[in-house]
């Protein structure tokens, strides 16, 4: 699936988008997988309460299932308007 990062999440991880093959069943499991990879993921996902997640471009939460999902995005709370 495609995993996208925005704002300071993108900056900490150092890229806007990557293709990830995973067997994670939920967003939370995917996050654990990513954190185990490298320091920069660990840094980006250190405080999940400071993060929001969208699955297939819909806001959701970290226990959302990943079956059949094409796109997951991580970002800080929005500051539009």
């Amino acid at each position, binding site marked *: 699936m495609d995993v*996208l990062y*925005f*704002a*300071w999440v*993108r900056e900490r991880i150092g890229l806007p988008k990557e293709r990830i093959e995973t067997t994670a069943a939920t967003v939370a499991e995917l996050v654990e997988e990513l954190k185990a990879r490298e320091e920069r993921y660990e840094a980006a996902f250190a405080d999940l309460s400071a993060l929001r997640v*969208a699955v297939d*471009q*819909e*806001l959701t939460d970290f226990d959302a299932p990943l079956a059949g999902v094409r796109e997951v*995005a991580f*970002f*800080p*709370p*929005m*500051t*539009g*308007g």
Partner: protein
Amino acid sequence: MRISIQEAPFDLGQEADQFAAGRVDMGAIVTFTGVVRNSAKGDLAAMEIEHYPGMTEKAIEAIAQQAKDRWSLGDVMVIHRYGRLVPGDKIMMVATASPHRVDAFEAAEFLMDYLKSRAPFWKKEFAADGADWVAAKDEDEDALSRW
């Protein structure tokens, strides 16, 4: 229902005129325009707005549809820019048309409250002492609870 996510500037007057044109059934037209405000210190050089192409459009359409379901609205418009802006630049604009003033006002406020916290935009400010992502305010999240 016009929704535009764009890098280019928009013309407030022209947008307002076009939105209002030819309405004989709508007694009330409200516009809100957001402008890049300088910092208290006056040292904001620029702001960069990042967004999530694809999701942004969907999220704003859903917010606008909620407004149309909830209030008596003849039309709704949302324009939101991304990219680099400087103090004084217009960031975004919403407009609502309704037979009644209360509906037009409430729907415009609802749109603004939801755009602030539910549309995927992020602002980064560039000032004299460096660059920083704007933090979401508790009051913006709290504002949603009134709807």
